[in-house]
């Protein structure tokens, strides 16, 4: 590749958006499955939704929204060459992401403690609709959790790159793309909150 080191930031963003399309459809499939099951078992979903800890869900929503804000602010900071501030903002995103995961794990642990986990003997005694509810709950929040972990790793690398000046005022497409990913993870949670925690 001789003279073609020309950079195409628009192309990179397009690629990233197309990747996000696949993520949207991936979760879209789950949301469609959710609606299908909720349509079949409205009462059970209502009841089982009441068993979830809505407060934790709401706190987590606020955490994620804020972490989204800090990412987007970090980009502004990079655009203005405010390196220290950019690092601080990215650092807080990472911290908030971890908080999210910690809360999430407490929530899961509580459910496990009550004998509510896939294939558990207690779950088997519940009506079918509730079993499906918990199946979906664990699948969707679990998959979302995996995405949070992936996003955090990505942003961790970005932090490193900001620190080492691989990301700077005239070259921040990677940060922008990682930010896009993180926001999508946030958007998915925005939908998960009312579907599971506020369903009752």
């Amino acid at each position, binding site marked *: 590749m001789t003279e073609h080191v020309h950079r195409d930031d628009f192309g990179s963003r397009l690629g990233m958006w197309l990747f996000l399309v696949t993520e949207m*459809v991936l979760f879209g499939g789950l*949301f469609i499955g959710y609606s299908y099951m909720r349509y079949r078992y409205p009462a059970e979903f209502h009841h089982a939704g009441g068993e979830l800890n809505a407060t934790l869900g709401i706190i987590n929503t606020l955490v994620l929204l804020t972490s989204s*804000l800090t990412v987007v*602010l970090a980009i502004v900071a990079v655009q203005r060459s405010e390196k220290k501030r950019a690092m601080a903002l990215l650092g807080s995103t990472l911290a908030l992401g971890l908080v999210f995961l910690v809360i999430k794990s407490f929530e899961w642990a509580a459910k496990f403690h009550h004998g509510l986990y896939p294939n558990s003997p207690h779950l088997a005694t519940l009506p079918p609709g509730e079993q499906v509810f918990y199946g979906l709950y664990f699948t969707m929040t679990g998959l979302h959790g995996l995405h949070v972990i992936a996003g955090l790793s990505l942003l961790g690398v970005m932090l490193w790159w900001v620190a080492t000046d691989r990301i700077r005022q005239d070259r921040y497409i990677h940060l922008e793309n990682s930010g896009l990913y993180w926001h999508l993870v946030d958007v998915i949670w925005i939908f998960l909150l*009312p579907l599971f925690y506020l369903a009752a």
Partner: protein
Amino acid sequence: MSETLHSPETHAEHPGYGTFIKVWVVLLILTGCLVGVSHLGQTAAVWGLLTLTPLKAGLVFYFFMHLKYEGPLFKIVILVTLGTLLIFFALLFSDVAFR
């Protein structure tokens, strides 16, 4: 072609900190409304879900994900995706809801 000719890097003025913080505040308020509405009974909760949630997601897309500052292509991409999902959903329900 046109996209390559006038370079996309001329992407207008970058928005400042203020815009995003305002959007964040709105998002928090909307979350509050959503929680509030969900206590008003089943129908209110469902309507809240159906209106407020897409609104929140839309704000994140439009501002945080910079759609406001991009050309039409990305908007079309997203609309096509959402449209496809919506049609999948509708056709699936042509079965489920009429069995």
